[in-house]
C-alpha cells in the first residue's frame, strides 16, 4: 500500500478523497444543499445498498465462473443455464417442502453433479480447444434454456422469503434528521442484508481455502502451471472435477438467491452469464478478489445508474468494461500474462 502511494501519489490521493467523500455521503446527514442536487438521501442509500447486494449475487455466480476459467481455461458459457436451473430447482424444493434452507444443499448437490457430468463429457475431451468448448457450451445453453422453458414455462417465479428473514430491518445509517432532532434510520429488507453477509462469508472462505489449505495449494499451482502440476504426479483431474463441481454448485445456489430477492424467468440465464462475463473481464480472469471487486463495481454502477440515469444504466456497465479493456486489458486485479 505504501509502495503504491509512493509510486503514484496523485492517483492514491484522488482515490482517497473519493472514498472519503463517499463515506461522508453515506454516514453524515445531508445538508439541504446536497439534497437539492442529488435528491433525498434515502434514495441514494437505497441505491448504494442495492448495488452492494446485487454485487454480492453477481459475486456468487461469477466467482465459480472465474475459478473454473482460471484453473482449467475452461470456457463455460452454459454457466448462466446452471444459475437458472438452480433457481428453478430451488423454487420446487422450497415450494414442496416449505423449507428455504433445505433448497441450498439440494440445489448445490444436483447442479454440482451436473457440473461433474459436464467436465467429464465435454471439457475433458476438448482440453485446450477453447473455441470448441465455447461452441459446445453455447449449444448446451440453447438446449438447456429450451428444456427449462418446456418444463417450467414462460412464467416468472419468486422463491418465498422464509419468515425469519422477511420484513425490513433498521440499519445504523441516518437518512434524515427530524425537526425535533431525532434521527431517522434507513430501513432495508432483512433478507438482502443476510445475503450480503453470506456472500462475504463465502468469499472469505474461498480465499482461505485457496490460500491456506493443501487443496488450495493444488489449485493455485494448477492456475500457475497446469502441465507442471500434472507432471508432478498429483491427481490434477480430481482437482479439476472438484473445482468444476464447486463452481457449478455455486452458480446453482446463486439461482436460489436470485430467485429470492429478484425472480427467475427465461432470459435470466443470459443476463447472469453476461453479468459474470463483465464481472470477470473487469475484475480479471481467474482471480477471486478480482471477481469480488468487479461484482461490487458492476452492481453499484447498475443500481446507481438505474436511480439517477435510468436510460443509460446499461451504458455505464459497458463503459466501465471498455475503459478497463482500454487501459488494463488483463482486468483490474488480473495477472499479466
Amino acid at each position, binding site marked *: 500500500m505504501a509502495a503504491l502511494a509512493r509510486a503514484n501519489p496523485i492517483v492514491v490521493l484522488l482515490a482517497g478523497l473519493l472514498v472519503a467523500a463517499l463515506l461522508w455521503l453515506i454516514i453524515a446527514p445531508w445538508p439541504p444543499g446536497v439534497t437539492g442536487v442529488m435528491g433525498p438521501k434515502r434514495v441514494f442509500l437505497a441505491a448504494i445498498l442495492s448495488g452492494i447486494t446485487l454485487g454480492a449475487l453477481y459475486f456468487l455466480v461469477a466467482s465459480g465462473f472465474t475459478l473454473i476459467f482460471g484453473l482449467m481455461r475452461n470456457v463455460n458459457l452454459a454457466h448462466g443455464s446452471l444459475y437458472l436451473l438452480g433457481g428453478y430447482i430451488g423454487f420446487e424444493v422450497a415450494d414442496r417442502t416449505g423449507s428455504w434452507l433445505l433448497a441450498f444443499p439440494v440445489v448445490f448437490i444436483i447442479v454440482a453433479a451436473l457440473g461433474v457430468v459436464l467436465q467429464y463429457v465435454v471439457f475433458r475431451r476438448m482440453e485446450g480447444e477453447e473455441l470448441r468448448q465455447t461452441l459446445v457450451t453455447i449449444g*448446451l445453453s440453447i438446449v438447456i434454456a429450451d428444456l427449462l422453458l418446456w418444463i417450467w414455462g414462460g412464467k416468472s417465479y419468486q422463491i418465498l422469503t422464509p419468515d425469519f428473514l422477511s420484513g425490513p430491518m433498521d440499519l445504523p445509517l441516518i437518512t434524515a434528521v427530524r425537526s425535533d432532532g431525532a434521527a431517522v434510520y434507513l430501513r432495508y429488507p432483512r433478507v438482502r442484508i443476510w445475503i450480503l453477509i453470506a456472500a462475504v462469508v463465502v468469499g472469505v472462505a474461498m480465499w482461505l481455502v485457496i490460500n491456506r489449505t493443501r487443496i488450495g495449494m493444488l489449485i493455485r499451482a494448477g492456475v500457475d502451471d497446469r502441465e507442471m502440476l500434472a507432471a508432478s504426479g498429483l491427481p490434477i483431474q480430481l482437482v479439476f472435477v472438484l473445482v468444476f463441481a464447486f463452481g457449478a454448485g455455486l452458480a446453482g445456489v446463486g439461482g436460489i438467491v436470485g430467485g429470492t430477492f429478484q425472480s427467475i424467468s427465461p432470459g435470466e440465464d443470459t443476463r447472469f452469464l453476461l453479468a459474470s462475463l463483465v464481472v470477470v473481464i473487469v475484475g480479471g480472469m481467474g482471480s477471486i478478489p478480482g471477481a469480488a471487486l468487479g461484482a461490487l463495481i458492476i452492481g453499484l454502477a447498475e443500481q446507481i445508474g438505474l436511480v439517477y440515469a435510468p436510460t443509460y444504466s446499461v451504458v455505464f456497465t459497458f463503459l466501465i468494461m*471498455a475503459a478497463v479493456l482500454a487501459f488494463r486489458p488483463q482486468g483490474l486485479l488480473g495477472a499479466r500474462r
Partner: protein
Amino acid sequence: MAVAGEARLPAGSASGGWLARVPPALWVLALLALLMPAFANNFILFQVFGWTFILGMIALSLMFLAGYGGMVSLIQMTVAGLAGYLVAILGPSGTEQVSLGLPWWINIPAAVLIATFFGTLVGALAVRTEGIYTIMITLAIAAAFFYFTRQNYTIFNGYSGFSLVVPPQLFGIDWRQPVAFYYLTLGCALLSYAAVVYVARSPFGLALQGVRDNARRMAALGYNVVWHRILAYGFAAVIASFGGILLVWQNAQIAPGTAGLPAVIDILVIAVVGGLRHPVGPFIGAFIYVLLSSFAPDILQALGLAPDRFKLIVGIGFLAVVYFSPDGVLGLWERAMARRRNRTDPLTGLPR
C-alpha cells in the same frame, strides 16, 4: 478448432482465362439461382431464399473474421442491427416522431458508414484481446447494445422499435415484391461473396491469414498486426451492415429483439454449422437454418411434439455438429470426398 484458410492462390493466367476454370456445377447452380422465380412460389422466394441470403451475408462477415482472421466476433449481428436501425431512424418509417425521413441516397450510405465505424471501433477494442476473450467481449457489447436499444426511447424508440421500414421505390420497381426482393438479395449476396473471395486473395487478405496463423512472425516481418485485424473488422462490418439493411426491409420493421442475444447466437450457429473454412459455408448454414425454422413446426407436429420446440431441434443439431464435426457441414463434405479419393490404391491408382 483449427480454422484452415483458403491458401490457394489464383492459378495464374492459364489457358482459357478464368471463365473456363469455373466448374460446371457452379454454372448449373448459377442458372438455377437466376431462373428460380420461374418455378418457385412467392413464399420460397421471399421467405426462404431472401432470408437465406440475408442471414448468409451476416454470417459471411463472421466467417471472414473467424476463418481468415482467427477472430470469432459475436458483434456482427449487432452491426447489422445498428445499420437497420439507422435506416429506420434516418429514413422514412411508420414511427414518425423519431424518423428523420431523409431520402435513400443519404440514409443508406450514412447507415452503412456509421455501422461500419461502430463495427471497426468494437474491433479496435476486441483486438486488444485474443481467442476466448474476443468472444466474451463482443458478446458483452452485443448484449449492451440490445439492452440499450430496449431502454432508449429518444433514438431507438425502445421496446416497439420501428415499423413500416420499406425499401425505396427505385426505377419504378417495388423492391419488396417477392421476385424483385429475391434478385436484390441474390445480387447483394453474390457481391459480398465475391468481395470476400477477392479480399481473401489480395495482399491484405493473405497478410491477414498470416496474422491468423502466426501473429508474432508477421509482426517480425514488419506487418502491422493490430491494423490488419482492425481493418478486417471494418471490412466485415460493411458486409454485415448491408445484410442488416436488407433484413429490415424484409421484415419491414426492427425492434431490439432483431439484434438480441438469441439472434447473435443464431449467426454464430449458422456460420459454424455451415463451416468457417470457405465463404460458401455461411450460406449453406443459413439455408439449413431457414429451412429448419420455416418447416420445423410442421415436422415437430408430425412427430407429435409441440411446435414451439424449434429451438431445441436447432440446439441439438448445432451441438451434434460442433461435437462431431467441428468444421461444419463443409467439413463433413470434405471428409467424404477425401474418403472417396482414398478408395483408390495409392500405388497403382486403381480402385481397391
